[in-house]
């Protein structure tokens, strides 16, 4: 009987472990995007990606719809190419959609903002592997200051 009690205690122990995992998985982690659901990929080239990192969120109007899955340099001029993994739930972006790199708050992290384009008969929908051409790069503080000084000098 002693071994039965031991087994019972160990069983409870394992159940507590599973409950902890469920708690962490359901309550602490984001469950909707990119965890279990299907995804597709979109690409965008920027002049400058600023402080964007892999895993930075991709948002539409503040709602996370995907994440940056890869950042690389392509082409002869080494342009930054960003690969975004977007949840299949949001697969109705037209090819007039634009992307910009934004900053949350003054010191916050950078993320990608998707601005869905208009939809009518003349535009096509973005599919897996498509490129978004309308991009706005990150604001880089040094460039801004440079422009400002340059502008002052010209006056």
């Amino acid at each position, binding site marked *: 009987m002693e071994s039965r009690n*031991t087994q019972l205690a*160990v069983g409870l122990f394992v159940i*507590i*472990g599973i409950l902890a*995992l469920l708690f*962490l*998985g359901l309550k*602490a*982690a984001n469950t909707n995007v990119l965890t279990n659901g299907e995804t597709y990929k979109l690409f965008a080239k920027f002049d400058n990606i600023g402080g964007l990192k892999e895993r930075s969120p991709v948002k539409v109007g503040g709602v996370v719809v995907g994440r940056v899955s890869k950042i690389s340099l392509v082409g002869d001029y080494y342009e930054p190419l960003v690969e975004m993994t977007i949840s299949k739930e949001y697969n109705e972006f037209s090819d007039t959609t634009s992307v910009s790199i934004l900053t949350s708050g003054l010191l916050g992290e950078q993320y990608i903002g998707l601005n869905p384009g208009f939809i009518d008969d003349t535009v096509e929908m973005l599919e897996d592997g498509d490129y978004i051409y309308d991009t706005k790069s990150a604001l880089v503080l040094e460039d801004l200051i440079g422009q400002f000084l340059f502008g002052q000098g010209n006056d």
Partner: protein
Amino acid sequence: MLNRVAALGKATLDSVAGAGAAFFMLMRALVGKPQLRKSWPLLMQQMYSVGVLSLLIIVVSGLFIGMVLGLQGYTILVDFGAEQSLGPMVALSLLRELGPVVTALLFAGRAGSALTAEIGLMKATEQLSSLEMMGVDPLRRVISPRFWAGFYSMPILALVFSAVGIYGGYLVGVRWLGVDDGAFWSVMQSNVEWGQDILNGVIKSLVFAFVVTWIALHKGYQCTPTSVGISRATTSTVVTASLAVLGLDFVLTALMFG
């Protein structure tokens, strides 16, 4: 001078031989066909003494560490007007670092030292020899179930630690200091990910479980079978295992999040 060099050489050779012995001990303990009927009750018994009995210290420490994180995090973040980020701060510190690491350190102190002392004493009282003479391999019979028990228990303990810690952070942050309830969880959720954070934390604690249990068992198995020998081995288990955990944590963190 020459003596020093010789001593260094001997120390190196000894540690290489020690690592080799530890490796062979583990190989012999784990390789071979398992006999489920016999090993299941042994595993249960060890899961009980290694895992279940460590649960209390893990829950209490997890709660306190989570509460401290909530308090410290709040006082720091509130200066930047970023107290909404308290949730992810608490959750990420626990899931990525404190959960696996502190659990491993506590485990080394609580269960690891007990394993070393137990096996050392079994050696000193000739129980291991006695098994050998009975034709029962002590590595399979004594070492192996303890190893698996440690290996399975620690990730469970680490998960419990993180979960309780997050709850502690919630108690202090939301209930006491008045961070918005919804923001606490939702900001946490948008920043914590299954694969990157939870899974990597579990992988970390599996690695720590392997190393800590291994060190504890090896120190016990190799100890000089006297009271001084056992006490040295026990101390050495806690020191070596703790250093190994901290060192490995850096390497793993660099690999996973670097």
